[in-house]
């Protein structure tokens, strides 16, 4: 990473990510009820004024842990995020450094007072620190620590929350850890691994870019061969040309890959050896079929995956019933 990138990251320290904005609704009993029912929290002080007064309180209070819920953006804004502000800028800058995945690692809540129905909470989030790149179990990443300050309708602080996320370059698919942070941009899909292209196989990948599955043929003995190579294994001739495959074949063998997970692929990933009608075999993926449905000798037909502008690859899907 260049020094200027480091400096650009450092410039975010102290910056406001989310401006203070009141929650959609004031603290209220219906939301408290939903919370304590779902949490199965039997503490009576959240819904019963008399029980709350018996503990010295003026009436019911909201569960302390509910603080974050009062300023959540809700369903509509989650579905159609709008102005991402400083938060969006930071996410973009991190993505520029390759840190496209996120997992929350720490939440440290300090409560200044209990909230009661009618309180109207707003939250402001500021960056405290961005760590140098660290190697973690999930991949190389940076810890981003922010401080969320919750204030009431009078501007008094009611709670603070130190919030730490790891923004990382996924070593595997996005982590199973904790929840993605609200506002997180959708993950950019990783590129498929590049094939090692050389003078002996370039023609095959170039044909694939045009959605043509070709098979190398010996000019001398007419034997077909795959994978590609400079020399005929039957007659040792170096002369070759190609024929275009019919696209019909059957499953010769297959495995289902669960682990390790490369971020370019969907899992479980079916890796198959397909024997073409012409007799050669190639390693490919099966699509439009679940691992449970795949059978040896299952008839399959050619399809194409346009992985990215520089890479198209043949895959195979089961032959539809009416095609039998």
């Amino acid at each position, binding site marked *: 990473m260049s020094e200027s990138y480091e400096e650009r990251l450092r410039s975010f320290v102290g910056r406001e990510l989310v401006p203070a904005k009141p929650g959609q609704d004031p603290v209220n009993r219906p939301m408290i009820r939903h919370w304590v029912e779902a949490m199965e929290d039997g503490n009576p002080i959240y819904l019963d004024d008399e*029980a709350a007064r018996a503990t010295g309180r003026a009436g019911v209070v909201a569960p302390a*842990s509910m603080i974050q819920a009062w300023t959540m953006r809700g369903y509509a804004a989650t579905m159609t995020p709008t102005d991402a502000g400083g938060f969006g800028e930071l996410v973009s800058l991190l993505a520029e450094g390759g840190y496209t995945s996120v997992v929350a690692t720490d939440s440290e*809540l300090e409560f200044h007072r209990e909230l009661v129905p009618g309180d109207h909470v707003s939250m402001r989030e500021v960056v405290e620190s961005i760590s140098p790149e660290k190697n973690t179990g999930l991949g190389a990443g940076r810890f981003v620590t922010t401080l969320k300050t919750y204030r009431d309708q009078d501007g008094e602080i009611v709670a603070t929350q130190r919030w730490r996320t790891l923004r990382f370059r*996924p070593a595997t698919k996005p982590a199973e850890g*904790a929840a993605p942070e609200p506002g997180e941009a959708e993950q950019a899909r990783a590129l498929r691994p590049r094939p090692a292209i050389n003078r002996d196989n370039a023609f095959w990948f170039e044909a694939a870019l045009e959605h043509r599955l070709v098979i190398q043929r010996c000019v001398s003995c007419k034997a077909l061969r795959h994978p590609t190579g400079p020399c005929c294994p039957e007659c040792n001739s170096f002369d070759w040309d190609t024929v275009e495959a019919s696209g019909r074949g059957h499953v010769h063998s297959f495995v289902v890959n669960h682990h390790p997970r490369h971020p370019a692929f969907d899992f479980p990933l079916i890796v198959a050896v397909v024997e073409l009608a012409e007799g050669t075999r190639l390693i490919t993926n099966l699509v439009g079929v679940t691992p449970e449905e795949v059978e040896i000798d299952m008839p399959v037909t050619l399809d194409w995956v346009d992985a990215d502008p520089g890479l198209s690859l043949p895959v195979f899907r089961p032959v539809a019933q009416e095609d039998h």
Partner: protein
Amino acid sequence: MNARSAGDDGVNGAPVTAGDVAGGTVNGIVNGARDYAGIAVGDTLPELSIPLTRTMIVATAIASRDYQDVHHDPELALQRGSKDIFMNILTSNGLVDRFVTGWAGPAAVVKAIRIRLGAPNHPGDTMVLTGTVSAKDDKDNQVEISVRGTNSLGPHVTGTVVVRLPKGGDA
């Protein structure tokens, strides 16, 4: 309802009878009613085992207004690299809150919840919460409890909770 009648006094000296009140019996949890004097560092909280059903993970996400798809949509969770939906952070905080205040009693005021997150809580698993009193602060009658919530994959949540309690004792 196996309600425990508190022998200790509430903040105002009014006896607290936890569990007899409406809203206190969602799942038969018995609220304790601790006071500061009656607690010692090293005391252990009763273990709380929480079955992590799919419905519960979705219900708690929605109750906390968290509509991230990974908390309710199994297909999208799978696409994002998780084996299934998983519990959101607000719920981890909520369950730790419930665990500690359920033991401490209705008079307890939560002052801090500090957690580190680990293995995800997926449907079909069980999280077992354990806790130990790790510190006491005489000045504010505050007690710190070290908490750990473990599922079949390992620790889901570890951290500390600070509650302020009625003084109790000879006060």
